[in-house]
């Protein structure tokens, strides 16, 4: 990839002499971590190119538009292995790229941002959903394309409240991420009028996600784990670590639906989404990558499209001019969500509707009807301006 990029540079220098109207080259970096997480369901196991596949499609889309504006976009990918220095990798990428799309854990993302601060390079966070990155740890050089945990939790809670399923049994995993999601669900309950009737922790005692003995044991364990609970409408599972949530549907003691990390799941995107012209995007993605488009793919697509949108609107490849546009009042991007997406100016979080999906279909899209807001109904999802802890300036 790097070699190809160097070739492109060499070519463009050589061509400058010959052609008067060389395209403006706009380099985008992609900084991710190596390896993929293990999921309980084989069907949900992410592909090796999860995320960057979306960025590649957006580069194609940007280049189709770029043909008419004499702009050309390239993508340079770096995958960090365990123990590699993120600050160094980010700085190296920033040598040739004005913007970097990042799929990194929160601490690594902050290290990368701080390493790039003086250079002025901006990271587009496509992967991390931590609220802290948009609140107390916010940075002026990170634009957040991924939704936050609180946006996801609020989207789910609005639907459950709209459905009048207000009594929730919350099961929380034993890892930090799971606890953060549980915090977001508790906050959503308070905001929208849900009631958590009982909480239980599901300890991760280790063990393999796949066994030859199969489901026999799980079928005995899950009913026992979910019995003796006060009357509830929905079981909410907070299990980002993929330890137990997918074992719960159809195995609860009482016949109740499951939501959260399994069952009805809040997400930025799903392969089943076909509203608002999405079919064209889904088709383009499948044609290019021979697989379905995930939420991470969509977040990376949107990030690269935001950069393309900025380049076409300011008719320039100058990162500073593009950034001013992205942060300015005229920025919006169309991303197949039925309405324009804009940035919250207080913490640079992309406002977006959240899909509620069951693995086969899009069940609903939040914000739900009737959840009103004085600025944008999308701000009923997540931490709003009056509550923010972010100080960008």
């Amino acid at each position, binding site marked *: 990839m790097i070699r190809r990029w160097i070739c492109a540079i060499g070519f463009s220098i050589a061509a400058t002499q010959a052609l008067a109207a060389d395209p403006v080259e706009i380099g985008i970096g992609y900084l991710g971590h190596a390896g993929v997480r293990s999921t309980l369901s084989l069907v949900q196991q992410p592909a090796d190119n999860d995320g960057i596949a979306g960025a590649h499609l957006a580069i194609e*889309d940007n280049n*189709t*538009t770029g043909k*008419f*504006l004499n702009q050309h976009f390239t993508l340079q990918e770096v995958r960090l292995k365990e123990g590699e220095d993120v600050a160094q990798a980010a700085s190296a990428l920033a040598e040739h790229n004005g913007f970097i799309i990042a799929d990194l854990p929160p601490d690594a993302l902050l290290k990368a941002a701080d390493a790039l601060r003086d250079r002025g390079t901006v990271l587009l966070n496509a992967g991390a959903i931590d609220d802290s990155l948009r609140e107390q740890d916010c940075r002026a050089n990170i634009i957040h394309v991924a939704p936050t945990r609180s946006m996801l939790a609020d989207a789910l809670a609005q639907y459950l409240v709209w459905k009048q399923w207000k009594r929730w049994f919350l099961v929380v995993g034993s890892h930090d991420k799971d606890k953060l999601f549980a915090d977001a669900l508790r906050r959503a309950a308070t905001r929208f009028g849900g009631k958590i009737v009982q909480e239980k922790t599901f300890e991760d005692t280790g063990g393999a996600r796949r066994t030859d003995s199969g489901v026999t044991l799980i079928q005995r364990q899950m009913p026992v784990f979910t019995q003796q609970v006060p009357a509830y409408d929905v079981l909410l599972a907070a299990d980002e670590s993929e330890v137990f949530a997918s074992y719960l549907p159809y195995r609860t003691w009482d016949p109740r639906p499951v939501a959260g990390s399994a069952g009805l799941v809040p997400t930025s995107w799903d392969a089943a989404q076909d509203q608002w*012209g999405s079919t*064209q995007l889904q*088709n*383009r993605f499948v044609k290019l990558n021979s697989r379905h488009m995930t939420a991470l793919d969509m977040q990376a697509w949107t990030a690269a*499209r935001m950069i393309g*949108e900025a380049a*076409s*609107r300011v008719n320039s490849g100058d990162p500073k001019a593009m950034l001013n546009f992205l942060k300015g009042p005229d920025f*919006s*991007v*169309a991303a197949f969500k039925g*309405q*324009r997406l804009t940035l919250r100016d207080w913490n640079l979080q992309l406002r977006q509707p959240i899909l509620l999906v069951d693995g086969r279909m899009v069940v609903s899209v939040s914000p739900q009807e009737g959840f009103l807001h004085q600025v*944008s*109904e*999308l701000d009923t999802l997540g931490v709003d301006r009056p509550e923010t802890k972010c100080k960008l300036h």
Partner: protein
Amino acid sequence: MWRRCLLFGLGASLATSLAAATPARAYTAYVSNEKGNTVSVIDTDNWTVTKTIKVGQRPRGIEFTRDGKSVMVAVGDDDTIQVIDTKKQEVVDTLPSGPDPELFTQDAAGKILYVANENDNTVTVIDLEKRARLGDIQVGVEPEGMTVSPDGKILINTSETTNMAHFIDTSTRKIVGNVLVDARPRFAEFKPDGSELWVSSEIGGSVSIIDPVKHVVTGKINFEIPGLRREAIQPVGIGMTKDGKTAFVALGPANRVAIVDATSHKVTKYLLVGQRVWHMAFTPDEKYLLVTNGVSNDVSVIDVAAQKVIKTIQVGELPWGITIEP
């Protein structure tokens, strides 16, 4: 909302029974029902659906042939355009479009058809007499809106993700200009005298006024409706009277049609119609304008002179496009 619609419909039908006293020539309107996979036929004399025609999957763009004998309807999920014989009122033929056709337009003589193929980033050119594909023109991402200039020299195509109106020379079939507009441009319409091109941007929430000679945006129409968020205002279909004085713009989920003074570009009135209003067509005498309401499964009839909605007609599932016999 539903109740309001129903009450409104009742009131409107009373008004129509009075209006029906004045005799007007009856026309036939054809409405494509995107989800129903049907086309509803409306008699404009008594505003009733006289027939529902089964067509292919996901019918959207729909237009009469110039001779008035057939109706062409793009059935995107079947990757073709079907031809309905208006006498038999059934599908009798198909045209060789590219994959996933959505909207199309034809030249003044009715001999050449230009089709936007969303999946392919192309505009397909079809010879209507020979039923043959003449070629493809590469355009931006997700081509949609299509129109031909009144002098026939320029074809306009809008691309939804590229956010441009492409100017294509109809004789060379080459792009001669590209104009950037607001997000997700969906529909293009020339002023009858060819002096202006109007392009609606669904997500951008505006209509761009373009100088077709200089290829620049000279003005923008924005819409403000008290009590409605900016995000809900999503302009799609545009209709203009033949005298070029008045334009109607469908505003999607804002459930309204804006009436615009086409000279000053000022919005003069908003008409409440059904839910998610998409496209529109005038009766040839321009007495009435019919608009399709996607979510409420009906068509609103607007009295053009009175600037009032006079009737609501229930059609098939998710009505999208509409055409009225010439």
